[in-house]
C-alpha cells in the first residue's frame, strides 16, 4: 500500500533487519529496550533530510523530509525550529504520503462534450488565457475572478494579486482565508490599526494561565497545545477551556466552562464589567495607550445578495463605556449565557489579577461568527483594560487555521480590498503598488468588489463569467454549498480549477490544471506568529504538474502581460520574494532576507537589524516604537489602541420549534479542512474514515438514536445524512450537534448558513438551526 517508498529492495532489506531485531530482542530479555525500539526503525543514515514548514495548519511547525533516490520517504519534526522543537502531529508525520495517491492529477484536463480530455499543459494554459481575454473583451474586467487560498505560497499569492490588480485591473481577487481569518484581520485593524498578533509562541513558556476561547487546540493546534501541556505539568500553568462543546482540549484542561452559542459577546463584556467595577483596570496604561470607541449596531447578517455595510466609529468617554457595561453584570449575562456567575467572576479575576500572566487563544470559534470582528475587539478590550498585552506571557493571540493565511492572504493581501501594502481604497497605497509593479497607477481600481461569499453569489447570478480557483476546494468549504454548487455548474461561468487531487470543485471545472504539491515546488509560508519560512523543492512532481505561481505567470504572459512577469521558471520563487519584500521595507514590517530564511527555520517579521521582533508595540522589544513610552500602538495615527463598545446581538439563526438544534461544524485532528489531502493518507483515513454527527447522550436517548445509526441533519437550506456519534470524540451541549466538515461524501455545508460578519464578511459556520431525523 505504501508505494511512496519505491526503492522496494532497500525497504524490504530494512524491514527484514527490523524484524530480525525484534526477534533478537525477544530472545534476550535482559536487554534495555529503549534502544531496541529505536532499532526497529530502519537506520535513516542514507536519507537526505530537507528543511521546510509543514503543509498543514497555521502553527507552522518546522519539518524535515527524508528524501531517498528522489522520493520523499519520511518526515520528522525539525529540532532546530523554535515552533515545534522536533515534535509534529499525526497529519504532519504522514503528510508526504498523499502525493502517492493513485488518483493524482498529473495532466491538464479539458472538458469536451461533457467529459474530460487529457490535454498538454501548454494547450490548456492557452485555452485559459484566451478564454479570460475573451471574457474581459465581451463583459469587462469585472467579469473575471480569481479565488485563491491561505495555503497558497507567498509567491503564488503575490503573482495572483499582481496579475489581477496590476495587470488586468480588477479587484476580483479573494481567497478562502476570508472564510477563516477575515474577522481576525478586521479585529486587529479596528483595535490596533495593524494586522497580526503582537506576541509569539514564546508566550507559552511564561504564561500562568491559558484561556482558550472556543478553540479545541488539542486537535486543531496540537503542537502548541503540547507546549501548553508541558508548561502545565512542569510549571503548574493552568489551561481554561471556554467553549460551546466538550472536547479533547476540555478534558485536558484544568477547567472547562461551557457557554450558549453566540453569548461569548456577553460574557466578554461581563468580564470587562467585573474588571472595571472591581478596580482592576490598569489606569495608567489605559490613559496613555487607549481610546474608547463605539460603532454601529444591528448590522444585519449579510444574508441577502449585494449586502453592503460600513461601520461608523465614533469616540466615547470611559464613563459612557462604563455605563454601557451596566447591561452586562455577571448576574444578567449568566441568565442567557448559561455560564454561572461564579465562573464569569472566576474568569474576570484571572484577567484582573495583576500578578498573573494570561494568554488568550482563539481561532475559528471567534472568527467564524456573525459578530466575529466584535468578538475579536472584545477580547482585546479585556487585555487592554488590564494592560496585559505585548509582554512575554501576557497577551491576546489570534491563531491562524491555514499555513500561510498570515504570510500570503493577509501580508501579500489576496483579498479584494487589499494590496501587498495597504488597501485599494487608499491612493497612496495604490501608487506604491503601481510603482513597484511598474504599472500605471490608474489601472488599480479603488473600489473593492466581491468578498468570498459574494463572489460565489455573483457566479450564481451570472455576473462573474470566468473564475479560476487555486489551492482550495470551495464546493466543500463554502457555507450553503446547496446554492453555490449549482451556481458554479451553470453554463454562464467558465471554471478553471488548479489542484493536486480531484475534488468536488474540480468536478465542475471546464479546465483542470495539475498543480505540484508542497515539497514538489519551492515556496514561502508565513505562520500565526509572523514567522516567514522558506523551503526548496525537494522532489519532482509527476507528469505535467506545474507550480501554481508559474501557471499564473504563464497565463499572464499569454494575455500580453509578459513584461510585468520577467521571472525565470527555475528561480521565480526567489525573484518574486525579493520584489515583494520592497513593499514591507521599514521597521514596522520588514521581512527577513532570503539567505536568512534559508539558513534557519524561519524568522519573525518585523525583522530589523538582523533580529526578529517577538513582541510588537512594546518598546523593550520593538524598534519601531518611537513615542518614548513603554508601549506604542503605531498602527493608529495617535499611537493608541481602541477599546470598543460592542454589544451582544443574537445569532443570524437560532433554534426554534421546527429546527430545535444548534449546528456547529469544525475539524478533527486527523483531517485537514476538506480532506482532499488527508483522506488520501491511509493512516489518517483509517483513523477517521468518514464524518459523523455528534449528539449529546441525553438528546440521543430522547430520540432513541444509537451510536453509529444514520440520522439526517436538516436545515432550511438542505440536508445531510451521517452516522450518529455519541460519547466519542466530542460532546456537544444539550440542544447542539456537531459535524466535522472534511467529508465530501457527507456535505454538511449543504446545511450551513451563509450569514457573515458585516465588517469582516467572514461566514459563521458554527451556528445555524437544524432538526435531527432518524434516517
Amino acid at each position: 500500500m505504501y508505494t511512496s517508498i519505491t526503492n522496494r529492495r532497500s525497504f524490504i532489506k530494512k524491514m527484514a533487519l527490523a524484524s530480525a531485531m525484534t526477534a533478537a530482542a525477544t530472545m534476550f530479555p535482559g536487554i534495555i529496550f529503549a534502544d531496541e525500539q529505536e532499532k526497529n526503525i530502519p537506520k535513516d543514515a542514507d536519507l537526505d533530510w530537507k528543511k521546510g514548514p509543514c503543509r498543514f495548519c497555521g502553527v507552522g511547525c518546522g519539518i524535515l523530509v527524508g528524501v531517498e533516490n528522489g522520493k520523499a520517504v519520511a518526515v520528522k519534526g525539525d529540532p532546530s525550529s523554535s515552533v515545534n522543537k522536533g515534535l509534529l502531529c499525526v497529519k504532519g508525520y504522514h503528510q508526504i504520503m498523499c502525493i502517492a495517491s493513485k488518483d493524482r492529477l498529473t495532466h491538464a484536463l479539458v472538458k469536451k462534450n461533457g467529459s474530460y480530455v487529457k490535454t498538454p499543459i501548454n494547450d490548456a494554459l492557452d485555452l485559459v488565457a484566451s478564454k479570460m481575454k475573451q471574457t474581459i473583451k465581451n463583459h469587462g474586467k469585472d467579469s473575471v475572478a480569481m479565488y485563491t487560498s491561505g495555503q497558497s505560497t507567498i509567491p503564488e499569492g503575490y503573482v495572483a494579486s499582481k496579475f489581477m490588480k496590476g495587470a488586468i485591473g480588477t479587484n476580483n481577487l479573494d481567497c478562502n482565508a476570508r472564510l477563516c481569518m477575515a474577522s481576525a484581520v478586521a479585529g486587529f485593524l479596528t483595535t490596533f490599526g495593524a494586522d497580526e498578533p503582537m506576541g509569539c509562541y514564546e508566550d507559552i513558556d511564561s504564561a500562568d494561565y491559558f484561556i482558550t476561547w472556543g478553540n479545541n487546540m488539542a486537535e486543531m493546534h496540537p503542537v502548541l497545545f503540547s507546549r501548553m501541556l508541558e508548561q502545565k505539568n512542569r510549571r503548574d500553568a493552568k489551561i481554561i477551556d471556554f467553549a460551546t462543546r466538550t472536547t479533547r482540549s476540555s478534558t485536558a484542561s484544568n477547567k472547562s466552562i461551557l457557554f450558549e452559542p453566540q453569548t461569548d459577546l456577553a460574557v466578554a463584556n461581563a468580564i470587562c464589567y467585573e474588571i472595571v467595577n472591581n478596580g482592576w483596570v490598569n489606569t495608567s496604561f489605559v490613559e496613555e495607550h487607549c481610546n474608547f470607541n463605539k460603532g454601529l449596531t444591528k448590522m444585519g447578517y449579510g444574508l441577502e445578495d449585494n449586502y453592503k455595510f460600513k461601520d461608523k466609529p465614533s469616540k466615547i468617554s470611559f464613563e459612557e463605556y462604563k455605563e454601557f457595561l451596566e447591561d452586562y453584570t455577571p448576574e444578567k449575562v449568566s441568565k442567557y449565557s448559561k455560564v454561572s456567575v461564579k465562573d464569569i467572576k472566576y474568569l474576570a479575576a484571572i484577567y484582573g489579577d495583576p500578578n498573573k500572566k494570561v494568554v488568550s487563544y482563539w481561532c475559528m470559534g471567534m472568527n467564524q461568527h456573525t459578530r466575529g470582528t466584535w468578538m475579536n475587539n472584545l477580547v482585546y478590550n479585556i487585555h487592554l483594560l488590564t494592560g496585559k498585552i505585548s509582554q512575554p506571557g501576557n497577551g491576546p493571540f489570534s491563531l491562524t487555521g491555514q499555513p500561510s493565511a498570515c504570510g500570503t492572504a493577509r501580508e501579500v493581501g489576496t483579498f479584494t480590498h487589499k494590496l501587498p501594502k495597504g488597501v485599494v481604497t487608499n491612493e497612496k497605497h495604490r501608487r506604491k503598488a503601481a510603482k513597484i509593479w511598474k504599472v500605471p497607477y490608474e489601472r488599480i481600481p479603488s473600489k473593492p468588489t466581491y468578498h468570498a461569499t459574494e463572489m460565489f453569489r455573483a457566479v450564481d447570478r451570472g455576473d462573474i463569467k470566468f473564475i479560476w480557483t487555486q489551492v482550495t476546494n470551495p464546493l466543500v468549504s463554502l457555507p450553503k454549498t446547496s446554492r453555490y454548487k449549482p451556481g458554479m455548474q451553470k453554463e454562464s461561468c467558465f471554471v478553471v480549477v488548479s489542484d493536486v487531487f480531484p475534488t468536488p470543485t474540480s468536478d465542475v471545472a471546464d479546465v483542470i490544471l495539475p498543480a505540484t504539491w508542497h515539497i514538489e515546488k519551492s515556496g514561502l509560508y508565513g505562520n500565526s506568529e509572523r514567522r516567514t519560512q522558506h523551503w526548496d523543492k525537494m522532489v519532482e512532481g509527476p507528469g505535467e504538474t506545474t507550480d501554481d505561481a508559474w501557471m499564473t505567470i504563464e497565463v499572464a504572459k499569454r494575455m500580453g502581460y509578459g513584461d510585468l512577469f520577467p521571472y525565470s521558471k527555475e528561480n521565480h520563487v526567489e525573484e518574486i520574494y525579493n520584489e515583494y519584500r520592497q513593499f514591507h521595507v521599514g521597521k514596522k514590517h520588514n521581512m527577513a532576507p532570503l539567505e536568512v530564511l534559508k539558513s534557519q527555520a524561519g524568522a519573525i517579521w518585523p525583522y530589523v537589524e538582523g533580529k526578529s521582533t517577538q513582541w510588537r508595540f512594546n518598546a523593550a522589544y520593538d524598534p519601531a516604537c518611537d513615542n518614548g513610552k513603554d508601549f506604542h500602538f503605531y498602527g493608529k495615527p495617535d499611537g493608541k489602541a481602541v477599546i470598543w463598545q460592542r454589544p451582544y446581538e443574537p445569532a443570524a439563526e437560532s433554534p426554534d420549534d421546527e429546527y430545535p438544534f444548534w449546528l456547529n461544524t469544525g475539524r478533527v485532528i486527523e483531517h485537514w479542512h476538506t480532506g482532499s489531502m488527508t483522506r488520501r493518507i491511509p493512516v489518517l483515513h483509517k483513523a477517521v474514515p468518514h464524518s459523523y454527527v455528534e449528539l449529546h447522550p441525553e438528546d440521543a436517548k430522547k430520540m432513541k438514536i444509537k451510536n453509529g445509526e444514520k440520522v439526517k441533519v436538516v436545515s432550511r437550506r438542505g440536508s445531510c445524512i451521517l452516522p450518529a456519534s455519541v460519547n466519542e470524540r466530542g460532546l456537544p451541549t444539550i440542544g447542539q450537534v456537531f459535524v466535522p466538515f472534511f467529508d465530501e461524501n457527507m456535505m454538511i455545508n449543504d446545511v450551513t448558513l451563509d450569514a457573515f460578519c458585516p465588517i469582516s464578511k467572514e461566514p459563521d459556520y458554527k451556528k445555524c438551526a437544524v432538526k435531527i431525523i432518524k434516517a
Partner: protein
Amino acid sequence: MKKRLGIIFLFALLFGAFITIWNKSYHQGLEEAYIPIKKDNIINELPSESKVFTRSKHALNYAEMPVDAKYQRSLITYYNNRAYPGAPPSIPHEILQDGIVGGNSCLKCHENGGFVIKYNAYTPVTPHPEMTNCRQCHVESRTKTLFKGNSFYKKTPPKVGINNALLGSPPMIPHALQMRENCLSCHAGSSAPKEIRVSHPERVNCRQCHVPKDKEIKDLDLFTRAN
C-alpha cells in the same frame, strides 16, 4: 417581694428565650428535612478522550523513572496472561481473602503500581481504576488442567515495530481502545512491557501523533469519488 419578682421575671425571660430559640431551631430542622429534587446529573465526561490524560500528572515522574532492566515485563508474558489479544488478563497471583472489592484491595497496588518484593515484579497499572468490581472480569487461574480439551485459536498479538507507515513516523495504535484509553498506564513506567514502553511519556497528548489503525466501526462506504 422585689427579689422574688426579679427571680420570676428572670425565669420568664429565660423561658421566653428558650421558646423562641426552640421554635427557630425546630423550623430550621423542618427546612433541612426538605430534600430538594435535583435534576439528573448531565453527563459531561468524555471517557474516550479524557482518559488519555488521567495519568498525565505522573508524566514527568514517568519520564525520569529509570529502567530497571532486571524486572522488566515483556510482551510475551503480557499476552500469555490473556486468552486472546484484548481479553482481560487473569490474576497471576493468589488472593488471600475472597469476597474483597477492588477499591479496598486490588487498587492499593494496581492504581499506581510499584515494586512488590513478594512477587519480584513491578505491579501493572490498571487503565480503568474507576471500575472497582475487578473480579467481574479478572479471575484467578487456580489450575493448569482443563475440564475438556479446547482448540481455541488464539489470535497472534499485534507486533511491535511494524506499525509505522513511514520510516520513523509515529506508530499507529494496533489495538482497540475501549477500556484502554489511558495510554500511560501500560506504556509508561517500570511495569510497562519493555517492547512498548514509551520513550517520551511527558508528551501526554498521545493521540496527537498516534492514531488507531483499525477503528472498530463499520465502514460506511469506501472513500470513493464519482469521477
